Protein backbone atom coordinates (compact mmCIF):
# COMPACT_ATOMS: atom_id res chain seq x y z
CA UNK A 1 0.00 0.00 0.00
CA UNK A 2 2.78 2.39 0.99
CA UNK A 3 6.25 1.84 -0.36
CA UNK A 4 9.40 3.78 0.53
CA UNK A 5 12.53 3.37 -1.53
CA UNK A 6 15.82 4.82 -0.35
CA UNK A 7 14.11 7.83 1.19
CA UNK A 8 16.67 10.36 2.40
CA UNK A 9 16.15 13.73 4.03
CA UNK A 10 18.99 16.11 4.80
CA UNK A 11 18.88 19.35 6.79
CA UNK A 12 22.07 21.13 5.80
CA UNK A 13 24.84 18.74 6.83
CA UNK A 14 22.60 16.56 8.98
CA UNK A 15 21.09 13.48 7.38
CA UNK A 16 17.96 12.95 9.48
CA UNK A 17 16.61 10.11 7.34
CA UNK A 18 19.13 7.98 5.48
CA UNK A 19 18.21 5.55 2.68
CA UNK A 20 15.09 4.22 4.37
CA UNK A 21 13.17 1.55 2.47
CA UNK A 22 10.19 -0.46 3.64
CA UNK A 23 6.65 -1.31 2.67
CA UNK A 24 3.37 -1.15 4.57
CA UNK A 25 0.96 -3.95 3.65
CA UNK A 26 -2.71 -3.21 3.18
CA UNK A 27 -4.67 -3.97 6.34
CA UNK A 28 -1.64 -4.09 8.61
CA UNK A 29 -0.55 -2.08 11.62
CA UNK A 30 3.13 -1.32 11.22
CA UNK A 31 5.08 0.35 14.01
CA UNK A 32 8.22 2.45 13.75
CA UNK A 33 10.23 2.61 16.96
CA UNK A 34 13.63 3.98 17.84
CA UNK A 35 15.38 6.33 20.26
CA UNK A 36 14.84 10.09 20.16
CA UNK A 37 16.49 11.66 17.13
CA UNK A 38 16.29 8.44 15.10
CA UNK A 39 14.43 10.30 12.33
CA UNK A 40 10.97 8.81 12.83
CA UNK A 41 8.98 12.04 12.78
CA UNK A 42 11.10 13.41 9.92
CA UNK A 43 10.23 10.26 7.99
CA UNK A 44 6.53 10.85 8.68
CA UNK A 45 6.82 14.44 7.55
CA UNK A 46 8.40 13.26 4.29
CA UNK A 47 5.60 10.76 3.69
CA UNK A 48 2.84 13.25 4.58
CA UNK A 49 4.36 15.96 2.40
CA UNK A 50 5.23 18.52 5.07
CA UNK A 51 8.60 18.64 3.37
CA UNK A 52 9.78 16.57 0.39
CA UNK A 53 12.48 13.91 0.70
CA UNK A 54 15.93 15.05 -0.51
CA UNK A 55 16.05 11.86 -2.56
CA UNK A 56 14.25 8.55 -2.87
CA UNK A 57 10.75 7.52 -3.84
CA UNK A 58 7.51 7.18 -1.92
CA UNK A 59 4.48 5.59 -3.52
CA UNK A 60 0.98 5.16 -2.17
CA UNK A 61 -1.33 2.61 -3.78
CA UNK A 62 1.09 2.34 -6.66
CA UNK A 63 1.35 6.05 -7.45
CA UNK A 64 4.29 8.28 -6.52
CA UNK A 65 3.46 10.87 -3.85
CA UNK A 66 6.88 12.31 -2.97
CA UNK A 67 6.96 16.04 -3.63
CA UNK A 68 3.18 16.46 -3.40
CA UNK A 69 1.77 19.04 -0.99
CA UNK A 70 0.30 17.78 2.32
CA UNK A 71 -3.24 18.67 1.25
CA UNK A 72 -2.89 16.71 -1.98
CA UNK A 73 -1.58 13.65 -0.13
CA UNK A 74 -4.44 13.82 2.36
CA UNK A 75 -6.93 14.00 -0.49
CA UNK A 76 -5.56 10.74 -1.87
CA UNK A 77 -6.54 8.94 1.32
CA UNK A 78 -3.33 9.14 3.37
CA UNK A 79 -3.91 10.99 6.66
CA UNK A 80 -1.58 11.82 9.52
CA UNK A 81 -1.80 12.95 13.13
CA UNK A 82 0.80 15.03 14.92
CA UNK A 83 3.15 14.09 17.74
CA UNK A 84 1.95 17.18 19.60
CA UNK A 85 -1.74 17.31 18.67
CA UNK A 86 -2.88 20.32 16.68
CA UNK A 87 -6.59 20.89 17.29
CA UNK A 88 -8.11 24.18 16.15
CA UNK A 89 -8.46 25.63 19.67
CA UNK A 90 -11.12 28.29 19.05
CA UNK A 91 -13.37 25.92 17.11
CA UNK A 92 -15.80 23.45 18.62
CA UNK A 93 -14.95 19.75 18.56
CA UNK A 94 -17.76 19.29 16.09
CA UNK A 95 -16.34 21.97 13.77
CA UNK A 96 -12.89 20.40 14.13
CA UNK A 97 -14.24 17.09 12.86
CA UNK A 98 -16.66 18.53 10.28
CA UNK A 99 -13.75 20.33 8.64
CA UNK A 100 -12.05 17.12 7.54
CA UNK A 101 -14.33 15.36 5.02
CA UNK A 102 -13.27 15.73 1.40
CA UNK A 103 -15.23 17.24 -1.45
CA UNK A 104 -17.52 19.55 0.55
CA UNK A 105 -19.36 21.76 -1.94
CA UNK A 106 -19.72 24.41 0.77
CA UNK A 107 -15.97 24.98 0.63
CA UNK A 108 -16.54 26.72 -2.71
CA UNK A 109 -17.55 30.36 -2.30
CA UNK A 110 -20.17 30.49 -5.03
CA UNK A 111 -21.97 27.32 -3.95
CA UNK A 112 -22.80 29.01 -0.66
CA UNK A 113 -24.57 31.86 -2.45
CA UNK A 114 -26.04 30.03 -5.43
CA UNK A 115 -26.68 26.56 -4.08
CA UNK A 116 -27.35 26.93 -0.34
CA UNK A 117 -29.84 24.06 -0.22
CA UNK A 118 -27.29 21.54 -1.37
CA UNK A 119 -24.70 22.93 1.05
CA UNK A 120 -27.17 22.70 3.94
CA UNK A 121 -28.08 19.12 3.03
CA UNK A 122 -24.41 18.11 2.93
CA UNK A 123 -23.78 19.86 6.24
CA UNK A 124 -26.55 17.90 7.90
CA UNK A 125 -25.05 14.59 6.77
CA UNK A 126 -21.55 15.78 7.63
CA UNK A 127 -22.72 16.69 11.12
CA UNK A 128 -24.22 13.24 11.69
CA UNK A 129 -20.95 11.69 10.62
CA UNK A 130 -18.91 13.99 12.85
CA UNK A 131 -21.10 13.07 15.84
CA UNK A 132 -20.52 9.43 15.01
CA UNK A 133 -16.75 9.84 15.10
CA UNK A 134 -16.79 11.95 18.25
CA UNK A 135 -18.94 9.28 19.95
CA UNK A 136 -16.55 6.63 18.64
CA UNK A 137 -13.60 8.21 20.47
CA UNK A 138 -15.73 9.01 23.52
CA UNK A 139 -15.80 12.79 23.11
CA UNK A 140 -19.45 13.02 22.05
CA UNK A 141 -20.50 14.87 25.19
CA UNK A 142 -18.07 17.69 24.43
CA UNK A 143 -19.10 18.19 20.78
CA UNK A 144 -20.20 21.79 21.22
CA UNK A 145 -17.24 22.90 23.33
CA UNK A 146 -14.13 24.64 22.00
CA UNK A 147 -11.18 22.32 21.50
CA UNK A 148 -8.83 24.30 23.78
CA UNK A 149 -10.50 22.82 26.86
CA UNK A 150 -9.28 19.29 26.04
CA UNK A 151 -6.48 17.47 27.88
CA UNK A 152 -3.47 16.13 25.98
CA UNK A 153 -4.92 12.64 25.69
CA UNK A 154 -8.30 13.94 24.59
CA UNK A 155 -6.56 15.98 21.90
CA UNK A 156 -5.01 12.78 20.55
CA UNK A 157 -8.50 11.26 20.40
CA UNK A 158 -9.90 14.35 18.69
CA UNK A 159 -7.16 14.15 16.05
CA UNK A 160 -8.05 10.52 15.46
CA UNK A 161 -11.75 11.34 15.07
CA UNK A 162 -10.86 14.24 12.80
CA UNK A 163 -8.79 12.25 10.32
CA UNK A 164 -11.25 9.34 10.38
CA UNK A 165 -14.06 11.67 9.27
CA UNK A 166 -12.28 11.97 5.92
CA UNK A 167 -12.35 8.17 5.50
CA UNK A 168 -8.65 7.67 4.80
CA UNK A 169 -7.27 4.27 3.81
CA UNK A 170 -3.89 4.71 5.49
CA UNK A 171 -3.35 6.66 8.71
CA UNK A 172 0.03 7.72 10.08
CA UNK A 173 -0.14 8.08 13.86
CA UNK A 174 2.74 9.96 15.48
CA UNK A 175 2.98 8.66 19.06
CA UNK A 176 -0.72 8.03 19.74
CA UNK A 177 0.15 6.96 23.30
CA UNK A 178 2.54 9.73 24.36
CA UNK A 179 1.41 11.75 27.38
CA UNK A 180 -1.79 9.76 27.67
CA UNK A 181 -2.91 8.37 31.03
CA UNK A 182 -3.04 4.55 31.26
CA UNK A 183 -6.83 4.32 31.18
CA UNK A 184 -7.08 6.51 28.08
CA UNK A 185 -4.24 4.52 26.56
CA UNK A 186 -6.34 1.35 26.69
CA UNK A 187 -9.12 3.26 24.93
CA UNK A 188 -6.76 4.40 22.19
CA UNK A 189 -5.39 0.87 21.65
CA UNK A 190 -8.91 -0.48 21.48
CA UNK A 191 -10.02 2.18 18.97
CA UNK A 192 -7.05 1.63 16.68
CA UNK A 193 -7.61 -2.14 16.75
CA UNK A 194 -11.31 -1.67 15.96
CA UNK A 195 -10.55 0.63 13.04
CA UNK A 196 -7.93 -1.76 11.74
CA UNK A 197 -10.35 -4.67 11.74
CA UNK A 198 -12.72 -2.50 9.70
CA UNK A 199 -10.04 -2.30 7.01
CA UNK A 200 -7.93 0.77 7.80
CA UNK A 201 -4.17 0.44 7.53
CA UNK A 202 -1.98 2.10 10.15
CA UNK A 203 1.63 3.16 10.34
CA UNK A 204 2.54 4.42 13.78
CA UNK A 205 5.45 5.83 15.69
CA UNK A 206 5.46 4.78 19.32
CA UNK A 207 7.73 4.49 22.33
CA UNK A 208 5.32 2.56 24.50
CA UNK A 209 6.24 -1.09 23.78
CA UNK A 210 3.06 -2.41 25.42
CA UNK A 211 1.04 -0.48 22.86
CA UNK A 212 3.31 -1.64 20.03
CA UNK A 213 3.15 -5.28 21.15
CA UNK A 214 -0.64 -5.10 21.48
CA UNK A 215 -1.19 -3.68 18.02
CA UNK A 216 1.46 -4.45 15.46
CA UNK A 217 3.03 -7.55 14.14
CA UNK A 218 5.62 -5.71 12.09
CA UNK A 219 8.01 -3.41 13.90
CA UNK A 220 10.63 -1.29 12.16
CA UNK A 221 13.46 -0.11 14.39
CA UNK A 222 15.20 3.10 13.34
CA UNK A 223 18.42 4.53 14.71
CA UNK A 224 20.44 7.50 13.44
CA UNK A 225 18.23 7.87 10.40
CA UNK A 226 18.53 4.29 9.19
CA UNK A 227 16.42 1.16 9.50
CA UNK A 228 18.20 -1.05 12.02
CA UNK A 229 16.07 -4.16 11.85
CA UNK A 230 12.52 -5.23 11.08
CA UNK A 231 10.64 -7.97 12.91
CA UNK A 232 7.86 -8.66 15.36
CA UNK A 233 7.72 -6.89 18.71
CA UNK A 234 9.14 -9.78 20.75
CA UNK A 235 12.06 -10.31 18.38
CA UNK A 236 13.15 -6.72 18.09
CA UNK A 237 13.03 -6.00 21.83
CA UNK A 238 15.44 -8.90 22.43
CA UNK A 239 17.82 -7.95 19.63
CA UNK A 240 21.17 -6.73 21.05
CA UNK A 241 21.47 -4.08 18.32
CA UNK A 242 18.19 -2.55 19.42
CA UNK A 243 19.20 -2.58 23.06
CA UNK A 244 22.47 -0.95 22.09
CA UNK A 245 20.71 1.74 20.08
CA UNK A 246 18.55 2.64 23.06
CA UNK A 247 21.00 2.19 25.91
CA UNK A 248 24.44 2.45 24.32
CA UNK A 249 27.15 -0.22 24.36
CA UNK A 250 27.55 -2.12 27.64
CA UNK A 251 30.76 -1.22 29.42
Amino acid at each position, binding site marked *: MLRLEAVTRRFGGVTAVDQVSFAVETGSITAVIGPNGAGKTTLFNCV*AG*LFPPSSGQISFEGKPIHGL*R*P*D*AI*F*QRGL*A*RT*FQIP*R*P*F*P*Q*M*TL*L*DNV*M*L*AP*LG*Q*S*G*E*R*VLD*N*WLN*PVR*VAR*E*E*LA*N*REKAHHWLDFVGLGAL*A*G*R*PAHILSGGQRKLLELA*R*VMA*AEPRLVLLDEPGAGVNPKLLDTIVEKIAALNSSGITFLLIEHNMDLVAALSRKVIVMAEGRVLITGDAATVTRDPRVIEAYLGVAA
Partner: protein
Amino acid sequence: MADLIPILSYVTFFLCFAVIFAVMALGLNLQWGFTGLFNVGVAGFVAVGAYTSAILTAPPYPDSLGGFGLPVAAGWVGAMIMSGLVALVVGVAALRLRHDYLAITTFGVAVTLQLVALNARWLTGGPFGLQFIPKPFQDLLGTGLAWNMAYLAMSLAVLGLVYVALERLVKSPFGRVLRAIREDETAAEALGKRAFSFRLQSFVIGCMVMGLGGALYAHFVGYIAPEDFLPILTFQIWTMLIVGGSGNNRGAIAGALAVWLLWSLSGTVLRQIIPQSEQARGAALQIVLIGVILAAMLIWRPRGLVGEVIGTPAGKDEKGNTGKKA
Protein backbone atom coordinates in the same frame (compact mmCIF):
# COMPACT_ATOMS: atom_id res chain seq x y z
CA MET B 1 -39.79 72.19 13.75
CA ALA B 2 -37.46 74.22 11.58
CA ASP B 3 -34.70 73.62 14.12
CA LEU B 4 -34.94 69.90 13.57
CA ILE B 5 -33.91 70.01 9.94
CA PRO B 6 -30.21 70.80 10.49
CA ILE B 7 -29.99 68.16 13.22
CA LEU B 8 -31.67 65.60 11.00
CA SER B 9 -29.36 66.65 8.20
CA TYR B 10 -26.32 66.15 10.35
CA VAL B 11 -27.50 62.78 11.67
CA THR B 12 -28.15 61.55 8.13
CA PHE B 13 -24.76 62.78 7.00
CA PHE B 14 -23.12 61.13 10.00
CA LEU B 15 -24.92 57.81 9.47
CA CYS B 16 -24.02 57.73 5.78
CA PHE B 17 -20.34 57.81 6.67
CA ALA B 18 -20.82 55.24 9.44
CA VAL B 19 -22.52 52.86 7.00
CA ILE B 20 -19.80 53.33 4.38
CA PHE B 21 -17.09 52.65 7.00
CA ALA B 22 -19.05 49.61 8.15
CA VAL B 23 -18.86 48.16 4.64
CA MET B 24 -15.09 48.62 4.63
CA ALA B 25 -14.80 47.10 8.12
CA LEU B 26 -16.77 44.05 6.96
CA GLY B 27 -14.24 43.53 4.17
CA LEU B 28 -11.37 43.71 6.65
CA ASN B 29 -13.19 41.38 9.04
CA LEU B 30 -13.29 38.60 6.45
CA GLN B 31 -9.53 38.96 6.04
CA TRP B 32 -8.38 39.54 9.60
CA GLY B 33 -11.26 38.36 11.77
CA PHE B 34 -11.88 35.09 9.99
CA THR B 35 -8.67 34.30 8.11
CA GLY B 36 -5.97 36.06 10.13
CA LEU B 37 -4.64 38.02 7.15
CA PHE B 38 -2.82 41.11 8.40
CA ASN B 39 -3.90 43.58 5.69
CA VAL B 40 -2.66 47.07 6.51
CA GLY B 41 -3.40 48.33 3.01
CA VAL B 42 -7.13 48.97 3.41
CA ALA B 43 -6.90 52.57 2.15
CA GLY B 44 -5.28 51.42 -1.09
CA PHE B 45 -8.09 49.03 -1.99
CA VAL B 46 -10.71 51.58 -0.97
CA ALA B 47 -8.97 54.09 -3.28
CA VAL B 48 -9.00 51.67 -6.22
CA GLY B 49 -12.75 51.25 -5.79
CA ALA B 50 -13.40 54.97 -5.40
CA TYR B 51 -11.36 56.00 -8.46
CA THR B 52 -12.72 53.17 -10.61
CA SER B 53 -16.31 54.06 -9.90
CA ALA B 54 -15.61 57.77 -10.43
CA ILE B 55 -13.91 57.20 -13.78
CA LEU B 56 -16.65 54.88 -15.00
CA THR B 57 -19.60 57.11 -14.10
CA ALA B 58 -18.50 60.75 -14.30
CA PRO B 59 -19.03 62.97 -17.34
CA PRO B 60 -15.95 63.21 -19.61
CA TYR B 61 -12.97 64.84 -17.94
CA PRO B 62 -11.06 67.30 -20.14
CA ASP B 63 -7.53 66.38 -19.04
CA SER B 64 -7.68 62.76 -17.98
CA LEU B 65 -8.93 59.36 -18.93
CA GLY B 66 -12.48 58.34 -18.34
CA GLY B 67 -15.66 60.09 -17.58
CA PHE B 68 -17.51 57.28 -19.30
CA GLY B 69 -20.86 58.42 -17.95
CA LEU B 70 -22.04 54.92 -17.07
CA PRO B 71 -24.82 54.36 -14.51
CA VAL B 72 -23.75 54.49 -10.86
CA ALA B 73 -24.61 50.83 -10.35
CA ALA B 74 -22.13 49.93 -13.09
CA GLY B 75 -19.53 52.01 -11.27
CA TRP B 76 -20.10 50.07 -8.07
CA VAL B 77 -19.76 46.72 -9.81
CA GLY B 78 -16.71 47.98 -11.69
CA ALA B 79 -15.18 49.14 -8.40
CA MET B 80 -15.53 45.68 -6.92
CA ILE B 81 -14.08 44.01 -9.99
CA MET B 82 -11.09 46.37 -10.16
CA SER B 83 -10.32 46.11 -6.43
CA GLY B 84 -10.63 42.34 -6.75
CA LEU B 85 -8.19 42.28 -9.67
CA VAL B 86 -5.64 44.43 -7.84
CA ALA B 87 -6.06 42.18 -4.77
CA LEU B 88 -5.54 39.11 -6.93
CA VAL B 89 -2.22 40.44 -8.25
CA VAL B 90 -1.07 41.59 -4.79
CA GLY B 91 -2.32 38.35 -3.23
CA VAL B 92 -0.54 36.02 -5.62
CA ALA B 93 2.67 37.95 -5.02
CA ALA B 94 2.41 38.54 -1.27
CA LEU B 95 0.08 36.03 0.40
CA ARG B 96 2.83 33.50 0.97
CA LEU B 97 4.04 36.01 3.53
CA ARG B 98 2.78 35.81 7.08
CA HIS B 99 1.96 38.17 9.89
CA ASP B 100 4.08 41.33 10.01
CA TYR B 101 5.68 40.60 6.64
CA LEU B 102 2.27 40.62 4.98
CA ALA B 103 1.43 43.78 6.93
CA ILE B 104 4.53 45.60 5.67
CA THR B 105 3.85 44.49 2.11
CA THR B 106 0.20 45.53 2.05
CA PHE B 107 1.12 48.83 3.69
CA GLY B 108 3.65 49.42 0.94
CA VAL B 109 1.08 48.58 -1.72
CA ALA B 110 -1.38 51.09 -0.24
CA VAL B 111 1.24 53.85 -0.08
CA THR B 112 2.20 53.08 -3.68
CA LEU B 113 -1.41 53.24 -4.83
CA GLN B 114 -1.82 56.57 -3.05
CA LEU B 115 1.30 57.91 -4.79
CA VAL B 116 -0.06 56.73 -8.13
CA ALA B 117 -3.29 58.62 -7.37
CA LEU B 118 -1.21 61.69 -6.56
CA ASN B 119 0.95 61.58 -9.69
CA ALA B 120 -0.89 59.83 -12.52
CA ARG B 121 -2.75 62.93 -13.68
CA TRP B 122 -4.00 61.27 -16.86
CA LEU B 123 -5.81 58.69 -14.76
CA THR B 124 -6.67 60.23 -11.41
CA GLY B 125 -6.47 63.97 -11.94
CA GLY B 126 -3.38 64.11 -9.71
CA PRO B 127 -3.45 66.14 -6.50
CA PHE B 128 -6.68 67.90 -7.50
CA GLY B 129 -8.51 64.60 -7.66
CA LEU B 130 -11.68 63.85 -9.57
CA GLN B 131 -14.75 66.06 -9.38
CA PHE B 132 -18.33 65.88 -10.64
CA ILE B 133 -18.76 62.27 -9.51
CA PRO B 134 -22.48 61.76 -10.07
CA LYS B 135 -24.78 61.44 -7.10
CA PRO B 136 -27.50 58.93 -7.95
CA PHE B 137 -31.04 60.38 -8.31
CA GLN B 138 -29.75 63.91 -7.82
CA ASP B 139 -32.02 65.24 -10.60
CA LEU B 140 -34.97 63.95 -8.66
CA LEU B 141 -34.01 64.84 -5.12
CA GLY B 142 -31.68 67.81 -5.30
CA THR B 143 -28.67 68.07 -2.99
CA GLY B 144 -30.33 68.58 0.37
CA LEU B 145 -31.65 66.41 3.13
CA ALA B 146 -33.87 64.36 0.82
CA TRP B 147 -30.90 63.22 -1.22
CA ASN B 148 -28.82 62.46 1.86
CA MET B 149 -31.62 60.33 3.23
CA ALA B 150 -32.04 58.52 -0.08
CA TYR B 151 -28.33 57.84 -0.24
CA LEU B 152 -28.38 56.61 3.35
CA ALA B 153 -31.13 54.17 2.37
CA MET B 154 -29.11 52.96 -0.63
CA SER B 155 -25.96 52.56 1.47
CA LEU B 156 -27.91 50.67 4.10
CA ALA B 157 -29.26 48.35 1.40
CA VAL B 158 -25.72 47.73 0.16
CA LEU B 159 -24.50 47.15 3.73
CA GLY B 160 -27.35 44.70 4.33
CA LEU B 161 -26.56 42.82 1.16
CA VAL B 162 -22.84 42.64 1.98
CA TYR B 163 -23.63 41.55 5.54
CA VAL B 164 -25.95 38.74 4.44
CA ALA B 165 -23.53 37.52 1.75
CA LEU B 166 -20.58 37.50 4.16
CA GLU B 167 -22.55 35.93 7.01
CA ARG B 168 -23.55 33.08 4.75
CA LEU B 169 -19.92 32.69 3.76
CA VAL B 170 -18.34 32.72 7.21
CA LYS B 171 -20.91 30.31 8.63
CA SER B 172 -20.40 27.88 5.75
CA PRO B 173 -17.82 25.11 5.32
CA PHE B 174 -15.75 27.76 3.48
CA GLY B 175 -15.73 29.93 6.62
CA ARG B 176 -14.83 26.89 8.71
CA VAL B 177 -11.75 26.34 6.56
CA LEU B 178 -10.81 30.03 6.89
CA ARG B 179 -10.97 29.82 10.68
CA ALA B 180 -8.97 26.59 10.68
CA ILE B 181 -6.27 28.28 8.60
CA ARG B 182 -6.32 31.25 10.97
CA GLU B 183 -5.76 28.92 13.94
CA ASP B 184 -3.24 26.46 12.51
CA GLU B 185 -2.33 26.52 8.86
CA THR B 186 -0.14 23.39 9.02
CA ALA B 187 -2.93 21.37 10.60
CA ALA B 188 -5.44 22.64 8.01
CA GLU B 189 -3.14 21.57 5.19
CA ALA B 190 -2.66 18.18 6.84
CA LEU B 191 -6.46 17.88 6.57
CA GLY B 192 -6.51 18.41 2.83
CA LYS B 193 -7.17 22.15 2.66
CA ARG B 194 -4.96 24.14 0.31
CA ALA B 195 -4.32 27.12 2.55
CA PHE B 196 -2.94 29.42 -0.15
CA SER B 197 -6.05 29.11 -2.27
CA PHE B 198 -8.37 29.86 0.65
CA ARG B 199 -6.24 32.77 1.85
CA LEU B 200 -6.27 34.22 -1.66
CA GLN B 201 -10.04 33.91 -1.99
CA SER B 202 -10.58 35.55 1.38
CA PHE B 203 -8.17 38.37 0.51
CA VAL B 204 -9.77 39.06 -2.88
CA ILE B 205 -13.35 39.01 -1.58
CA GLY B 206 -12.42 41.25 1.36
CA CYS B 207 -10.72 43.75 -0.95
CA MET B 208 -13.72 43.73 -3.31
CA VAL B 209 -15.91 44.74 -0.36
CA MET B 210 -13.43 47.51 0.55
CA GLY B 211 -13.53 48.69 -3.06
CA LEU B 212 -17.31 48.81 -2.90
CA GLY B 213 -16.98 50.90 0.26
CA GLY B 214 -14.68 53.26 -1.65
CA ALA B 215 -17.25 53.60 -4.44
CA LEU B 216 -20.01 54.37 -1.92
CA TYR B 217 -17.76 57.07 -0.46
CA ALA B 218 -16.96 58.60 -3.86
CA HIS B 219 -20.60 58.98 -4.89
CA PHE B 220 -21.62 60.32 -1.49
CA VAL B 221 -19.01 63.07 -1.38
CA GLY B 222 -18.97 63.66 -5.15
CA TYR B 223 -15.29 64.50 -5.13
CA ILE B 224 -12.21 62.39 -4.35
CA ALA B 225 -8.56 63.32 -3.97
CA PRO B 226 -5.42 61.38 -2.99
CA GLU B 227 -5.51 62.82 0.54
CA ASP B 228 -8.74 60.90 1.20
CA PHE B 229 -6.81 57.63 1.08
CA LEU B 230 -3.93 58.18 3.48
CA PRO B 231 -2.85 55.46 5.95
CA ILE B 232 -5.03 57.15 8.61
CA LEU B 233 -8.04 55.63 6.84
CA THR B 234 -6.57 52.14 7.24
CA PHE B 235 -5.93 52.92 10.89
CA GLN B 236 -9.54 54.04 11.39
CA ILE B 237 -11.00 50.92 9.79
CA TRP B 238 -8.71 48.70 11.88
CA THR B 239 -9.77 50.50 15.05
CA MET B 240 -13.42 50.04 14.12
CA LEU B 241 -12.90 46.31 13.67
CA ILE B 242 -10.93 45.82 16.89
CA VAL B 243 -13.29 47.96 18.96
CA GLY B 244 -16.36 46.24 17.51
CA GLY B 245 -14.95 42.73 17.78
CA SER B 246 -13.06 40.99 14.99
CA GLY B 247 -14.43 37.63 13.95
CA ASN B 248 -17.99 38.90 14.25
CA ASN B 249 -19.69 40.79 11.40
CA ARG B 250 -22.16 42.49 13.71
CA GLY B 251 -19.18 43.59 15.78
CA ALA B 252 -17.55 45.15 12.72
CA ILE B 253 -20.69 47.20 12.04
CA ALA B 254 -21.07 48.21 15.71
CA GLY B 255 -17.41 49.22 15.79
CA ALA B 256 -17.78 51.39 12.70
CA LEU B 257 -20.70 53.19 14.32
CA ALA B 258 -18.99 53.59 17.71
CA VAL B 259 -15.61 54.77 16.46
CA TRP B 260 -17.08 57.12 13.87
CA LEU B 261 -19.30 58.60 16.61
CA LEU B 262 -16.28 59.16 18.85
CA TRP B 263 -14.28 60.57 15.96
CA SER B 264 -17.04 63.04 15.03
CA LEU B 265 -17.80 64.08 18.61
CA SER B 266 -14.15 64.57 19.50
CA GLY B 267 -13.72 66.66 16.35
CA THR B 268 -16.59 68.93 17.37
CA VAL B 269 -15.38 69.23 20.96
CA LEU B 270 -11.79 69.94 19.93
CA ARG B 271 -12.90 72.68 17.53
CA GLN B 272 -14.72 74.38 20.39
CA ILE B 273 -12.06 74.21 23.06
CA ILE B 274 -8.93 74.83 21.02
CA PRO B 275 -8.13 78.42 20.07
CA GLN B 276 -8.41 79.29 16.40
CA SER B 277 -4.65 79.63 15.90
CA GLU B 278 -3.96 76.09 17.13
CA GLN B 279 -6.77 74.32 15.29
CA ALA B 280 -4.56 72.64 12.70
CA ARG B 281 -2.33 71.07 15.31
CA GLY B 282 -5.25 70.31 17.60
CA ALA B 283 -6.79 68.06 14.98
CA ALA B 284 -3.97 65.58 15.61
CA LEU B 285 -5.46 65.02 19.07
CA GLN B 286 -8.30 63.16 17.35
CA ILE B 287 -5.82 60.56 16.13
CA VAL B 288 -4.29 60.37 19.61
CA LEU B 289 -7.72 59.77 21.09
CA ILE B 290 -8.47 56.93 18.66
CA GLY B 291 -5.09 55.41 19.45
CA VAL B 292 -5.84 55.56 23.17
CA ILE B 293 -9.23 53.91 22.66
CA LEU B 294 -7.62 51.17 20.59
CA ALA B 295 -4.97 50.50 23.23
CA ALA B 296 -7.55 50.55 26.04
CA MET B 297 -9.79 48.08 24.19
CA LEU B 298 -6.87 45.74 23.57
CA ILE B 299 -6.01 45.77 27.27
CA TRP B 300 -9.45 45.55 28.88
CA ARG B 301 -11.68 44.07 26.23
CA PRO B 302 -9.59 42.39 23.54
CA ARG B 303 -12.64 40.58 22.15
CA GLY B 304 -14.23 43.94 21.34
CA LEU B 305 -17.81 45.11 21.99
CA VAL B 306 -19.23 41.97 20.38
CA GLY B 307 -16.66 39.22 20.18
CA GLU B 308 -16.47 36.12 18.05
CA VAL B 309 -19.06 33.42 18.66
CA ILE B 310 -17.43 30.00 18.67
CA GLY B 311 -19.11 27.36 16.52
CA THR B 312 -20.80 27.49 13.12
CA PRO B 313 -24.58 26.82 13.10
CA ALA B 314 -23.77 23.25 12.11
CA GLY B 315 -20.88 22.98 14.53
CA LYS B 316 -22.89 23.68 17.68
CA ASP B 317 -24.42 20.85 19.65
CA GLU B 318 -28.16 20.09 19.85
CA LYS B 319 -28.83 22.57 22.62
CA GLY B 320 -27.30 25.33 20.54
CA ASN B 321 -24.45 25.38 23.02
CA THR B 322 -21.75 27.54 21.53
CA GLY B 323 -19.14 26.49 24.01
CA LYS B 324 -19.17 29.89 25.70
CA LYS B 325 -21.13 28.69 28.71
CA ALA B 326 -18.99 27.12 31.40
